[in-house]
Structure formats: C-alpha cells, structure tokens
C-alpha cells in the first residue's frame, strides 16, 4: 500500500483529505513531526488561511526544512490551497516569506467581483498532466480563497498547469517534475476531486523512492 504523509500544522480540517486519500487506496500518516514523514511515498500539504501563521506553525514543528528538502529533491508532493501558495516565495496577505520552492508571489485576486472566491469553478488545463488523467477538460472544482500565487521568472509558463477565471485569470494548478499544487480543494470536489487524489497516489506509488528514505517504524497518526 502506498503511504502518503499529510502534514498537520493545526490549520483546520484534515478529516476530508485523510478520508479521500484512504478512499483512493493510500495508507495515510498524519505527520506532526519530521520523523513521521519517513517512509512516505508522497507528501500532501493542505491548509487554509494566511501564510504567516502557517509558516510559524510549521517552524514550531521543525517541518519547514524537511518539506523544503522534499520538494527540492523532486519527491511526489501535492500542495492544496494554502499548501500550494506556500511553495512560492512570499505572500501579499501578510508579507510573510514562504517555502520559496517556486518563483513567484501569492497575490490578492484584485479584479474579483466578490471575495472570497467561494464555490465551484472551471479548471482549464494549459497542458496535459497525469494528475488530471481521466478528468474532463474544464471540470469544476471547489475553491475557497482570496489569494492565489502568480508564478514569475523564466519557468512561469512551464510550471503553470491550469488557470481559472474569477474577474481575472489566475493560476489554479502548477506542476514541476513530481511536485504539484492546486488552489482548489480536491478533497471537497466530489468524484473529480477523488480522481485527482487517486492520480496523485498512483504517481507517488510509481515514483522511485531512495531506499535510505524508507524508515521501518514511521508512526501512524490518526486524523
């Protein structure tokens, strides 16, 4: 069974993502300490809210460096909502620095007719990716956010995987190598969301994990 670590840094609801990954066939470890990441084939960083408090809570649990290393080592990684935003350099929400794995900043959706952007909206892929295998073009997913990351630099176009319209066009999914981030909530997006998470579990299962990273006694957490 493919083990997926879900990072718990006190940022709200983990029940849905835990259950959705289990339904997708994964063994889920809710990780509150760096040691609990050992042995996982994939890492999921969920979360809602602001970047500053989230980074502070990750730091208190000594999880910043392990997460950054995981992403930089190109191991299977899925950031959801705030977890996607944290991949970038900083957030305008509170000026906080984030993980800095991808170039760009998280910015307010200034042109949005209403904020927060809450509800189901079309996710338009700009290229194909196995994360979206079996999901029809422009399928709607559930969003609940006011900020979104804007990739910058020479790789901006290459990392963009999908965009969504809400008064303006924003980047709703990114991917680079084994790393992916989605601004929407697959764990709240019914059948298509479950499909996306199952695709991530399959990608993680197929990824070759360095033997040294597999610890025999990683603790299993409860949701």
């Amino acid at each position, binding site marked *: 069974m493919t083990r997926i670590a879900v990072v718990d840094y006190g940022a*709200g*609801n*983990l*029940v*849905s993502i835990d*259950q*959705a990954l289990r339904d997708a066939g994964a063994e889920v470890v809710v990780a509150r300490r760096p040691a609990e990441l050992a042995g996982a084939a994939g890492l999921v960083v969920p979360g*809602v*809210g*602001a970047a500053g*408090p989230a980074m502070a809570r990750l730091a208190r649990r000594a999880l910043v460096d392990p997460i950054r290393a995981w992403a930089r080592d190109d191991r299977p990684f899925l950031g959801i909502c705030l977890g996607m935003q944290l991949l970038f350099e900083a957030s305008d929400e509170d000026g906080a620095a984030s993980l800095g794995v991808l170039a760009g900043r998280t910015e307010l959706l200034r042109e949005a007719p*209403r*904020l*927060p*952007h*809450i*509800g*189901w*909206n*079309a996710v338009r892929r700009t290229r194909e990716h196995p994360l979206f295998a079996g999901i029809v073009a422009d399928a*709607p997913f*559930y969003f*609940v*956010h*006011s900020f979104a990351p804007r990739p910058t630099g020479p790789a901006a176009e290459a990392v963009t995987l999908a965009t969504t*319209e*809400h008064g303006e066009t924003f980047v709703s999914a990114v991917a680079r190598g084994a790393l992916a981030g989605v601004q929407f*909530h697959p*764990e*709240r*997006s*019914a*059948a298509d*969301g*479950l499909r996306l998470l199952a695709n991530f579990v399959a990608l993680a299962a197929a990824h070759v994990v360095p033997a040294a990273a597999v610890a025999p006694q990683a603790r299993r957490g409860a949701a």
Partner: protein
Amino acid sequence: MLAVRVVPCLDVANGRVVKGTRFVDLVDEGDPPQLAERYAREGADEIVFLDITAAPEGRGTLLDIVERTARRAFVPLTVGGGVRSVLEMRDVLRAGADKVSLNTAAVAGPDLVRRCARRFGSQAVVVAIDARRRPADRGATQETPAWEVVVKGGREDTGLDAVAWAERVVALGAGELLVTSIDRDGTQAGYDTALLRAIADRVRVPVVASGGAAGPADFIAAVREGGASAVLAASIFHRRQHSIAAIKAAMAAAGIPVRAVPEVAA
C-alpha cells in the same frame, strides 16, 4: 465562471435532521450523515448543518455527526449553531467542517468574528444573519423596507439594522453571509429578495439566500433580483418536492451558471 451554489440545509436537533418553522412543529427527517451523502450524490454544491439545539451537552453528538458526514460526503460542509469561542470553532473545523457559521455569539460579542477570522482566515467564517422586516410604525415602508436582526430563532429582537450589521461583520472579517428572512422561513412564500439585494449591494463577500424557497422560480429570483451567490433550502429537498437537479436545470435555463449534477452530466 463561478457557479451559483445550491445548498441543502440540515437543521439538526439531538442528532437528527428536523424541520419545522424553526423551533416549532419539528418533524424528524432523518440521519444527518446519510441525508448529507444523498444530497452530495444528487449534486449539492455544499451542505449546511445548523445545530438548532446547540445545548452544551450536545456538542459531542454534533462533532461526531460532522466527522461522519465529512468522511462520507466529499463536498464542502458549513456548520453553525452554538459556536461561542475560537476554541469551539477549532473543534468543529477539526471534526471536518470547512466553514463555521456564527450567529447569536457574534451579536453578543462581535469581536468573536475578528478573532475567528484572524485564527482560521475569513474564508472559514460565515456570519448568519436572521432578519425580520421592521413594521411601518418603526420607520419602514413597503417602498423603503428595513430589517432588524433577530436571534434565538426569531424570538428575540436585537435592535440592530440588518444591513448595517452585515457591513460591520464583513469589516470584522466575515467571509460570507448567510441571510435568512425570518418572515419567510418555513412559509414557502419565496426568498425576501429585497433583503438580499439590500445586503449584497453593500458587501463584497458572497451572500447566501435563505428562508422561504418553494420552487425553481424562487431560486432564480434570489440570484437575479437578490444578487445571491448561493441559494439555500431545507424542506423542499427533504420532502422531495423538488430535486437538486430540477432546481439546477431551471436555473441553467434562466442563464444562471450552475455546476452540472454529476449523473445528469454523464
């Protein structure tokens, strides 16, 4: 384009779904997680639980219901009823809710809205506003209506103007407003679209219409005339007077963007 959400509301009392005219004539309508799962399957865009007993001794039951629902229905869940503190909100979110709706406690101490928004983000904080039309002898007329915020299921007036209260809680950090017309709730006389419009025009956050839905025309009016971003109903879904698919089909035919019901879309 962002779809207008169709949201079934489950009033929960002592662990069961009930529906009457708020606190009177409660009729048992089923097991909350089971009903929520059915609605998710039938195309609900979100589900709202309102714990209308909200007695402290009932908290454990509510959290258990929230968790069982979150594990069975993969659509967003908003939970309201009796949340009085940041810690209580944390417990409800941990159990599997995405948003928490504050009502009486926000009226009693508006700073709760600010503290909850700062801790969990505005997107997780819904303020439920129960409003009643002011009678003519208190400065309101048919042409220039005004509404007063009421609490405890409409049994207690607060003296607050509903539109001013809406602006205030949004300034404090509310990310969404659930606006219920107490005059219309349970009557199937249609949403109070003037109330919805008065509030939607004054705030930037989404407004959820509630109270009075009887048929597809009411949902369309809530969006077109009321400016609502989401439409909520209870009894017409529980009693299967209209399916979510039928409501959405009528809204789509009227040119309102909706998320296709999965089975229908296939």
